[in-house]
Structure formats: C-alpha cells, structure tokens
C-alpha cells in the first residue's frame, strides 16, 4: 500500500487499526499453524522413514524370492503362477484432515490371500511359489502404507510452504505497511489539527 493512496482521515485510521489487529491475530494463528504443521510433519517423517526402510527391505526380499522361484521352478512356472491371480486387491481411497490439510487415507483389502485363493495350482507347485507370493503381497502392503504416508508428507510440506509464505508476508510486508500507513495518518491528522488551531488563532487575532 503506497502512502500516496492513503486517505488521512479518522475513519481510515480506524479501519487501518482494525486491519492491523486482524493481521496481527492472523499472523499469530498462522505462525501457530506453521509450527503445528512442522511438528506433525516431523512425526510423519519418522514414520515415513521407517516405512520407506521396510519397503526397501521388502522389495529386496521380493526380488530375491523371485530369483529363487525362477531358480527352483523355472520362468514358465513362475509366470504361470503370476498369471493365475484373478482377484486384485480392493483399494479404498478416503481422506482425513490434519490441521486443515486434506490427506489421503488408503485402505486395502485382500492384499494377503490364502493359498487356496491365490489362483495357482497347489498340487503342481512348491512352497517356493507360496513364499514368493507372500513376499510380493507384503511388498504391495508396504507400498500402500508408504504411498499414504509419503503423499501426506508431500501435502503437509506444500501447506507448510504456503503458510510460511503467508506468515512472512504478514510479518514483513502487510503489518509494517499498515503500521506505516497508520503512523502517516496519525501524523497527518496531528498536522491538520495543528493547522486548524493556528488558523483559528489567526482568525481570532484578526477579529479582535
């Protein structure tokens, strides 16, 4: 707000004072929100770090089991078992609210199946296929968990960034400008009052 645009009136002063109060309140609330989001972010970061570690571990295990299954059963049998899967996991995407930030809440059903439900023939396969399938089911579960946490983290980061920008704007631009405008109006009003007083004195002196 440029000072030249400011109207040095009492009503403007009152309005600016109200805006300053509002901005200061907003600043305080946004600062608290930013701190709260950062705390929440670090909490989730810890979980995400563990989940990511577990995901990498499960990925390595699944890859190892795949290599073992190819070794023991051969590529054709492994592919046959993989193609036998008829039921895909049901993934329900809901949302939850963390301090005003909408984050995903992913629920997955039937990721883990019993050997009778997996679709491959039990009598023509060995337990290596069971172990490989189990390793991949665990990997899918870890991916889902990781996806939820990492998306939450990404959304929280975006929100922290936005809140930080707003806090900075209020702290370094809006509030100082309003304060400057308030001071300017005050100064102008005081000056106008002094001029008026002087004018009155001059009129009084001339008439007497």
């Amino acid at each position, binding site marked *: 707000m440029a000072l030249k645009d400011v109207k040095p009136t009492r009503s403007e002063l009152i309005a600016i004072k109200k805006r300053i109060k509002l901005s200061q309140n907003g600043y305080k609330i946004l600062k608290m929100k930013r701190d709260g989001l950062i705390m929440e972010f670090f909490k989730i970061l810890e979980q995400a770090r563990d989940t990511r570690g577990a995901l990498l571990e499960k990925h390595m295990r699944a890859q190892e089991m795949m290599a073992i299954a190819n070794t023991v059963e051969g590529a054709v049998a492994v592919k046959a078992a993989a*193609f*036998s899967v008829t039921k895909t996991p049901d993934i329900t995407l809901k949302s939850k609210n963390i301090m005003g930030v909408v984050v995903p809440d992913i629920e997955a059903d039937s990721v883990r199946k019993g050997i009778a439900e997996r679709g491959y023939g039990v009598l023509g396969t060995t337990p290596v296929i069971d172990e490989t399938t189990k390793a991949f089911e665990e990997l899918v579960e870890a991916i889902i968990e990781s996806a939820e946490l990492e998306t939450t983290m990404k959304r929280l980061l975006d929100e922290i960034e936005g809140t930080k920008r707003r806090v900075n704007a209020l702290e370094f631009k809006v509030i100082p400008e309003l304060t400057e405008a308030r001071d300017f109006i005050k100064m102008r009003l005081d000056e106008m009052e002094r001029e008026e007083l002087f004018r009155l004195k001059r009129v009084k002196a001339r008439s007497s």
Partner: protein
Amino acid sequence: MVQSSSSPGSYIYTSTRLRVRKSKLLTPAEYHRMLNMGLSEITRFIGETEYQKEVEELGTSFSGVDLIELALSWNLAKEYQRVIDMAPGTLKQFTKTYLERWDIYNVLTILRGKIQGLSEGKIKEVLIPAGSLNKMVLDRLLAEESCERVIDGLKNWHLEPVLQSHAAAAISSGSFSQMENDLYKKFYADLLKVEEQGVTGADQFIKFVKLEIDTLNTKTIFRMQADAVSKASRDLFIPGASFTLDELEQISGLSDQVEIIDALSARIRNEPLLIALEELREKKTTLNEINIKLTKAHLEQMERLSRIHPFSIHSVLVYLEKKKYEVANLRALARGKESQLPGDVIEQYLVI
C-alpha cells in the same frame, strides 16, 4: 491298464541295473563342488557325467543355461524311456502309469506357454516327453496356434474330459490352477484303481502311491499353516491314502504346528516321515526347509521300501524319483548361478 508279468530273472536283472544307475547319480559332495563353480564350469562338469551325450549333441546350437536346461530335459526323458524299455512285465506298466504325471506337466506347460505368448522353442526347453504323450504328440501340440486347439488335439488322452470341463473358464481367466488340481486328483485316483485290477505287485505300487499322496497332503497342510490367512479347504487335498478328506480338512484347520504334528504322527506309520515330523516339532523352520525335509523323508521311505522289496516296482520308482530330483537340482544350480544367487542360498533349495 496293467497287464501280465514276466519271469523272475528279468525282475532281478532290472532291479540290479537300476540300483547301479542309482549309484551313478550325483553325490552331495559333487553338488557342493558345483555350488562353488560358475555356469560354464557347471556345464563342463555336467558334460563329463551321465549328461555328456546330450550336452555334446546340443552344445553346437545352445549355450549357457539354455544348453543345461535342454540337455537335462532330454536326458531325463531318454532315461525314463530307457527304464520303460528295460522294465519287464507289470513293472513296465506300473512305470508307464507313474510317468503319466509328466503328461499333466507337459500339457499344462504348453497351455501356459501359449497363454503367455512364449515361443515354441522356449516351451520345448522345459518339456519332459516321458509320459504317454510322446515327443511327436507334444511337437504337434506345440505347433497349435491357440489353447483351444491344443485341448482339441488331446481328444484321445484319458484325462481329456478334465481338461474339457475346465477349458472355457481357464482360457478366459488365464488361470489353469483348478484344472491343474483336478488333473492331479484324477491322476492319483486312477493310480489307486490299479489295486482293483488284482495284478501281481499292485500292492507295492499302491503303497508307493499312498506314500506319495500322504507326503503331498502333509506338504499342503504345512503350506496352509504357514499361510496365516488360509482357510481350511478340502479341495487342495488328495483322497485315498492315510487320511480322509474330512480329517485333512480338520488338521489343516489347526493353527499350531505342534498340534498338526501330533495329529499327523498319530496316524502315519512311515518312519522317516515320523522322524522328519519330530524334527520339525523341535525347532522353528521355514516353509522351504519343511518341504525339503518332507521330500527327503519321502525319498528315504522309498529307499527303505526298495530294500524291503528289492525286486518290486519300488526299485524302479526310487531311481526315477531320485533322477527327477537330480535334474531339478542341476536346473536350480544353473538358473541360480545365472541369477547370481549365492551358493549358500541355492543350497537351501536343493534336495541333497
């Protein structure tokens, strides 16, 4: 299915020859040596054993793991054929009946290969033409364009009705699991019918079939127990041996491994299997270790039966089974080395 018998001399001759062949199978020490070798060294090593002829024949056209896979398949098929030719009288018929399991394996491999769009050559690499469907029939099936035509080409196969009953659902879903389970169940049901025909030596053959069914069912129970989310399902068991389907369903419903071992031990009279079960009770093992232990117990019991009945079908079957595992071990070694798996990991999956 099963016909007359031959002179006792030919039984003794066959059993002795097979015992000699069995002694030529690779020893644990040789497997351990191979575990420290690279793929080319393994190929050379295999080329110096019973597989020499096949490795030399195929060496000009194939290399690496493809050469080993094909050489092993060819050798196994030829060996099975040689045993059939060698076996006299009823032993020949029992051997042929036993080897019909490879028909199921071959047919399912072709169907799955076709569904997956694999090349004829790649499917052929893993076929074992050892059953009633010979090389020519399998080549004809391989040349067919679709799964429907493969099934149509099996009109004279005795398990064709099972194929037909599942064909539509299996081809549309791409899953042959139900078909596979039912084919094996029908196969074992047919094997058990040999008893009704009253042929000499059938009792020993049935003993083997029941032993195999018991081992398979025991493995399935442990697989279901290892899989915490599994519900008891009688569809996965083969009837006709020590346990009824109801009993198997009941045992598979138990969640505690010790309870399962108790329930199995109460009925099983097979000593190596009982010892294996007792060992499982004592320490925590992985599903693979359980499987290998049960397979070893199965082979041990077959070995015992072949010693108790030296001139029966057992001496043929124990050799065929051991040969099958030798080929499976060599395949696993070659593939494992190609996938750069460490030797100790590969070793865990070998039946030695």
